[in-house]
C-alpha cells in the first residue's frame, strides 16, 4: 500500500520503511517552536524534568510575538521568563523585539523551516510550514517541553484528505478565499485528526504567500497538517531564504485517501466567513449590506508582503471611510521594511489606516484593536470565534486582504471590484 506525502515524511523521521494510518510512532524533530504565551508553561514543565538541558540549541525557536512589545506587566514577566531560559540554554533562534515577527511568517523567512522537516510548535498555526513541503503541526506546552528536552515526539500517523487544485484564480481571488471555500465545504471538523494534502496543476497559479495562507488555516478545518508538493516556486523560496538542505517527498501514486475533492480556482469568488465559525462562509456578493467598525489586515495568515501589496492596490489614492479604524500589521520586521521601501506604508497612512509593529495583537484579542460590544470587524485573521477579538457581543468577518481593504473604504463588507 502506498503512502501519502505526510506519511512518507513521518516514516523517515521515525526510521521506519513504511507507516500506516493509525500507527503510533516516535519521530525525530527538526524544530520545536514556542511563543510568549505557550513557552512559559513549557519552561515551567521543563523545570520538573529530572534530566537537565535541551536537545539542540539550534533546533528550538522561541518567538516573542503575541503580546509584545509587552502589553502589560504580566506579559512582560512571561517574556522575561523566556528570555532568561533562552539565555541560559544559549538558544540560537530566540527572537525578541527588534528581531521578531509573527512566528509563522518569521520562521520560513529566516530559513528555519524547509521541505521534509518534522516540526512541532506550541501554537496551533504551526501547520503553516506545510506550504514548503514540511510536516508541521501544533501541540501544547507539555509536548513542546518534552520536544525541547528530548528532540522527539510521538504521533498517531494521520490518514488524509486530498484536494486536487485546478484552474487559475481570477484577479481578486487569493489563498484566503481558497481555504475559506474549503473550510466552508468540509466544516471546522471536516479534517479532524487528518492531513490535508493539496495537489494538482492549479497549484502553480498560487504564490508562496497564498500557499502559506492555505496551509496556515488547515487547523481551522480540524486538520493535523496541511501540505503542498515541492515545485520550482517552493524550491526557489527555500534557496533564497535558507542555507539548509531540504528533502523532497512525494505521495505514492497508490496512496490511500479518506476523501478526495477537486477545487477549481477559476470558479472561486472572494469569500467571507461570518460569525462565529470559519465554516460559515458566503461569497462576498452574498454578504448583504453590513456596516462595520474596524478592519484588521495582518496576522500569521495574511500579514505577508503579497497581502500588503494587494491591500495597498485597493487603498491607493482612496480614503478609509469616516468612522472606520483600519489597522495594518506587517507580519515581520523584514516585511515591514520591504513594505516601506515599496511605498506601501505611505499608501496605508495616506488612506487613513494605521501601521503597527509586528504582533499577533488583535487577532486573539490581546491588544492593538480590541472590539467593543456590538462592533463588527472585517479581518484577515483566522478565527471568528465568540469574543476572539474583544467583547463577546462583537463580530468578526474573516476575509482576504483585498476584501478587507475594500471594506475599509466603503465602511461595509465589500467586493474589491467596488
Amino acid at each position, binding site marked *: 500500500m502506498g503512502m501519502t506525502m505526510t506519511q512518507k515524511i513521518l516514516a523517515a523521521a521515525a526510521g521506519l520503511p513504511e507507516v500506516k494510518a493509525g500507527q503510533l510512532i516516535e519521530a525525530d524533530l527538526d524544530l520545536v517552536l514556542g511563543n510568549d*504565551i*505557550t513557552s*512559559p*508553561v513549557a519552561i*515551567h*514543565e*521543563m523545570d*520538573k*524534568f*529530572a534530566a537537565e538541558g535541551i536537545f539542540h540549541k539550534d533546533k528550538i525557536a522561541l518567538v516573542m510575538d*503575541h*503580546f509584545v512589545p509587552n*502589553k*502589560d506587566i*504580566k*506579559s512582560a514577566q*512571561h517574556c522575561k521568563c523566556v528570555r532568561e531560559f533562552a539565555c541560559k540554554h544559549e538558544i540560537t533562534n530566540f527572537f525578541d523585539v527588534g528581531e521578531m515577527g509573527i512566528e509563522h511568517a518569521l520562521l520560513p523567512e529566516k530559513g528555519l523551516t524547509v521541505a521534509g522537516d518534522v516540526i512541532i*510548535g*506550541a*501554537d*496551533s498555526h*504551526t501547520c503553516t510550514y506545510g506550504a514548503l513541503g514540511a510536516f508541521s503541526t*501544533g*501541540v*501544547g*506546552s*507539555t*509536548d513542546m*517541553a*518534552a520536544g525541547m528536552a528530548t528532540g522527539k515526539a510521538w504521533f498517531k500517523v494521520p490518514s488524509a484528505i486530498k484536494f486536487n487544485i485546478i484552474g487559475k484564480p481570477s484577479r481578486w481571488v487569493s489563498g484566503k478565499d481558497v481555504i475559506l471555500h474549503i473550510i466552508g465545504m468540509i466544516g*471546522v*471538523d471536516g479534517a*479532524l*485528526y487528518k492531513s490535508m494534502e493539496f495537489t494538482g496543476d492549479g497549484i502553480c497559479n498560487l504564490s508562496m504567500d497564498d500557499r502559506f495562507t492555505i496551509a496556515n488555516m488547515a*487547523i481551522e478545518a*480540524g486538520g*493535523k497538517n496541511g501540505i503542498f508538493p515541492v515545485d520550482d516556486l517552493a524550491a526557489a523560496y527555500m534557496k533564497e531564504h535558507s542555507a539548509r538542505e531540504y528533502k523532497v517527498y512525494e505521495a505514492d501514486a497508490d496512496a490511500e485517501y479518506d476523501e478526495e475533492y477537486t477545487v477549481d480556482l477559476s470558479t472561486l469568488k472572494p469569500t467571507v466567513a461570518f460569525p462565529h*465559525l470559519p465554516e460559515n462562509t458566503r461569497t462576498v456578493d452574498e454578504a448583504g449590506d453590513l456596516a462595520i467598525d474596524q478592519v484588521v489586515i495582518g496576522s500569521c495568515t495574511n500579514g505577508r508582503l503579497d497581502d500588503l501589496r494587494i491591500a495597498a492596490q485597493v487603498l491607493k489614492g482612496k480614503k478609509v471611510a469616516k468612522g472606520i479604524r483600519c489597522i495594518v500589521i506587517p507580519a515581520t520586521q523584514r516585511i515591514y521594511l520591504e513594505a516601506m521601501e515599496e511605498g506601501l506604508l505611505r499608501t496605508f497612512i495616506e488612506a487613513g489606516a494605521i501601521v503597527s509593529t509586528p504582533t499577533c495583537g488583535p487577532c*486573539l*484579542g*490581546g491588544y492593538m484593536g480590541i472590539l467593543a460590544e456590538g462592533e463588527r470587524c472585517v479581518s484577515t485573521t483566522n*478565527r471568528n*470565534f*465568540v*469574543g*476572539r477579538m474583544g467583547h*463577546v457581543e462583537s463580530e468578526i468577518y474573516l476575509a482576504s486582504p483585498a476584501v478587507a481593504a475594500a471594506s475599509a473604504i466603503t465602511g461595509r463588507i465589500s467586493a474589491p471590484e467596488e
Partner: protein
Amino acid sequence: MKASGTVFKYGDNVDTDVIIPARYLNSSDPKELAEHCMEDIDKEFVNKVKTGDLIVADKNFGCGSSREHAPIAIKAAGVSCVIAETFARIFYRNAINIGLPIIECPEAARGIAAGDEVEVDFDSGIITNKTKGTTFQGQAFPEFMQKIIKSEGLINYINHK
C-alpha cells in the same frame, strides 16, 4: 479510578477561546485561569462548578488555539472528566498530557443533559447517568493513561518511569 459529579452541558465546537479567553493568557497560574474558565460561553460556570463535576459536550470540543491553558483551567476549576462526541486533536493531546481525563463517547454526549448526575469508571470505560438510570460504554483508559492522570501529567509520569 472513578469520577462523579453534576454535568455542565455544551454544544458543538466549543473553542479554546471561550474556554479561556486570550485576555487572561498573560497568566499561566492554574488558579487564576480557573477563575475565568468558560467565561465567554457560560458566565455562571465558575460560580456553580464543584470539585468532581463533569463537562459533557457535542462534537469538536476544544477546537482552535493550542493553548494548554484551556485544559489547565478546566482541571483547576475542579472538573473531574470531560466527555464529548469528539475532541479537537490538540486539546485531546494537551488534556492527557496535563492529566485531565477525557472520553470520546457520542452516545453519552447525546444521552446526558445539563444537571444530570454522572459517574465514570475509568477502568471499565462505563459512564453511568445516575439521574436517568442509563449507562454508556466509553473507551476504558489504558493503564499508562491512568498513570499519567495519577501523576498529574506527562512530565511527572516520565520522571517516575
